[in-house]
Every structure is written in C-alpha cells, then in structure tokens.
C-alpha cells in the first residue's frame, strides 16, 4: 500500500540528512509503529506520505502512484485518501467539534445528508457525542485528540497517519486514543503511527520500525520498544 524506495532527504546544506536510504513497505490493514529518538526522521517520513515534504532521492508510492509526481492541483484529492492525526491536534479553533469533523467531509465534497449521518457516528466512535458543540478550547487534550481522530476517519480513508498522537496526553487519555486507533485498524484501516511511548508499543504488540539518524535499524513484525 505504501512503499518507500531507497528514500533520502538531505537538508539545505546538502550534507546532513533527515532520511538515509529508507526502504520499507506497509501492507493494507497493517498497524505500523515507528519509534526512535527525536531527530531520527520519523516525522519527515510521515510528511513524505502526506506529500508535505519531498525526498531528495528515491520515491514514495501510494499503491502504484508516485506521491511526489502528483501535480499540485491534484494534491487535495490525494490527501483525502489519508486521515492525519498530530501531536498538537491541529483543530480549527473557531469551529466546534462537530464542525471540525464536518469540514473534512465538506472539503471532500460529501453531501449534507452524508455529513448529518456520518459525523455523529464518528463522534460516537470516539466517545464524544456529548461534546459535539464544544469549541476546541473547551475540550481536554484527550478529547481534542479524539476529535482529531474522528475527523481523520470520517471520510473512511485508506490509511491513517498519526504523528505522536499521544505525545501531549496523560496516561488515561493515551490509553483511550490507542484503543480507538486499534479499533479503527480492526475495522480495516491501515494505521501508521510514530511514538515515543514504550507502554503504547509494548501493549499494542504490532509491527515496529525503529529508526536512528534517518535510517531504519530494526523492523519487527511483533515488536517491542527497544532503543
């Protein structure tokens, strides 16, 4: 589904590298965690998938599509296939939880009927039916992240890309968010997640890719957090 073919990313000085000769594949319905110290290249790797960053060498494929050959005008359409979740939630502050989720559907060109039906479902899935009309500043960190996840899944994307989704959360909220991601994965959506959280990785017991200085140093099918 996602294929990194010998991808390197050099910084502007041309010497230091964020990614070095990275090659790996993610299959449909997989739950892949990417671990590594800060600066190991985890976020750069995710940015390549959502076409926010370009490789200096190599190619990144989404199915048979070379992501970085997509013309700029067609990028929004490509991004609609991917749900994104970030450490800082990235919610629209002047929209309510409901409107944040509805916005992703509106941007996708979904009908009003679909929005009316699917947004409450997504909110129910993340357990926030009662906070639909709250603005982000009225929600806790865990609730914000759950809204972000609801937004990411509402268009039924092929893949969810989550960059440190539990980075700003307390242990209980972390547990809830991971359970939701696991549930989404069980329903058939591919999940790629970066994290620093040893507990999360060990509890998940899924595939773990370990990165160091821009390289993949370990790729275990039922991995543990080893650094």
């Amino acid at each position, binding site marked *: 589904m996602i294929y990194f073919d010998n991808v390197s990313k050099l910084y502007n000085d041309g010497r230091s590298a964020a990614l070095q000769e990275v090659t790996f594949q993610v299959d449909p319905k997989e739950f892949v965690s990417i671990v590594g110290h800060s600066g190991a290249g985890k976020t750069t790797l995710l940015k390549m998938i959502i076409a926010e960053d370009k490789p200096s060498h190599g190619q990144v494929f989404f199915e048979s599509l070379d992501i970085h050959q997509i013309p700029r005008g067609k990028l*929004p*359409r*490509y991004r609609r296939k991917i749900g994104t979740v970030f450490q800082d939630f*990235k919610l*629209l502050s002047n929209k309510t939880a409901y409107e944040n989720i509805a*916005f992703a559907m509106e941007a*996708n060109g979904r009908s009003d009927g679909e929005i009316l039906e699917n947004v409450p479902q997504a909110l129910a899935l993340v357990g926030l039916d009662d906070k639909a009309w709250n603005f982000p500043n009225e929600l806790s960190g865990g609730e914000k992240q759950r809204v972000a996840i609801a*937004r990411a899944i509402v*268009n039924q994307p092929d893949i969810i890309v989550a960059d440190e989704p539990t980075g700003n959360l307390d242990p209980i909220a972390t547990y809830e968010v991971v359970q939701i991601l696991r549930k989404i994965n069980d329903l058939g959506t591919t999940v790629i997640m970066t994290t620093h959280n040893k507990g999360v990785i060990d509890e998940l017991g899924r595939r773990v890719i370990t990165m160091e200085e821009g390289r993949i140093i370990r790729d275990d099918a039922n991995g543990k957090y080893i650094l």
Partner: protein
Amino acid sequence: MLTGIKRVAKAGFIGFWRNAYVTSSSVFVITVALFVIGSTMFIDQLLTVSLKNLQAKVDMNVYFVPSAPQAEIDAIRNAVAALPDVASVTLTSREEALSKYRQKYQNNEVSMQALAELDDNPMGADLAIQANQTSQYESIARFLEEKIEQTSPQTVIADVNYNENRPAIDTLTKIIEAVEQTSLIVMLVLILAAIMITFNTIRLAIYTAREEISIMRLVGASNMFIRGPFMLQGAMYGILAGLITLLIFYPAMVWLGPHTETFFEFNIFSYFVSNFAYIFGVLLGSGIVLGLISSILAVARYLRT
C-alpha cells in the same frame, strides 16, 4: 457546485461572526481608508466648484465708443463668440448701459443732473467675454488687438480692460494650477497610504489564520474551498466599512452643508444627497475591492507553499 458555494458562504459568515477581533479591526481600517477616499471626493468637488465660481468672476470687457456702428459691434461680437477659447459673450447695448447707469446712480443728484444736461446717450455698448479657462484670456486679448489693427479702431473700440486685469488674472491662473496639482498629489498619497494600511492589516489578520489554512490543506480542502470564505469575509468587511463610512459622512455633511454654502457658495450636503447613489457605489465598491483583493493576496501566500 451549488453545495460548494453554499458551504463557502456559510464558512465565510461564520468566520466573519466568530473572529470578532479580526473582523472589527479589519472593518475599522477599511472604514478609515474609505473615509479618506470619500473625503478626497468631497474636497475635490469643493475645490472644483469654488475654482469654477472664481473663474466665472473673471471676465474681460470690450468698451465700444458711443458712436460705434451697430454692424461693427455685431461683427466683433460674432467673431469673438466664434473663438474656441470663449465660453460666453454678453453684449450690453448703449440703451441698457444707460439704464444700468441710471439705476446705479439714481440717488446721486449730481450724476443725474449731468446726464440730463446731455442731449445724447453718452454710454457706449460693451462686450463681456468669459473664457473657458483663465489662461485663455491672453489669446483672446491678442485676437482683439489684431482686430483693432485690421479695422479702423479708433472709431469703434474705446478700451479693452484686459491689460488692467492682467496681473490679477495671471496670479489667479497660477494659484488655480498650483491648488489643482497639490491637491491631486496630496490625495493620491493619502489614498495610497490608506490602501497600503488596509492591505497590511488584512494580511496580518490572515497571518493569524495561517495555521488554520495549513490544517484545511491537510484534510484535503481544495485551494478554492480554503480561499472562498476568506474572500467572502474580505468583501463583507468592505460592505460593512462602506456602510459605516456613509453613516459617519451623513451627519458630517448635514453640519458642513450651511458652512460650505457660505464659504464656497456650494452646499456639500445637497451634493451628498443628489449624488448619493454615486457616492454609495464608490464607497461600497472601493470597500469590497479593497477587502477582496487584500484577502486574495494574503491567502495566496499560504496556499503557494
């Protein structure tokens, strides 16, 4: 397509309503800009009208000798009226001149007695000439001089008062030109400054929304879907600012009307009322264009990357 427009409109209205601080500061700045533009219009109108009034007061007179034959007078009048620089020519006949004199000095016994002593009407006819512009009097004067040389002058024209009025006319011409040029430059500078301030304020307002724009892009919103609500908000800032500016101008004009009437012989309030549709159009139109263009330019920056 229709759904898209509906959603953009809804998002625009929500953004306008919920970002109260951004909305009020943008509307305030556009209002100031429109106030400058409107004031410029009114000052320009005042200047134009008062200069026109002033120019109308300047004229040139050709005095004929009392014995001048009517045919000659008519010939000169027609020749002057045919000049392209001449706006109007008014001929006062000997009889009219006499009755004007009588009217003017009716209480002056000496003058009336002197007049009664005479057998004949001592007044000559005269021709009042108005040029389109004060600078054109000189060429008209030259034409008359040539005319005097061609015909037997002494028998027809007694005097042309251009040479006496010349310094006054020249000074006035210079003042008018200088005022027109200076006011044009000052107004252009003011309008340019107002536009620049508006652009920058809205750019700053949208700068605060750059994070929002990046989020919209991440969830797959097309550029038009992102830009649309901002454009609508910009246009709404303009409309609201236009209306506020008109509301400010109205009482100002009511108050200024009588004052301008006395000072410039031109009631600015009457002008405001009779040209309301035009002023409304210019202010609202400028507001919308200002708001719209600033929004498009500001958002474009964050959509490019």
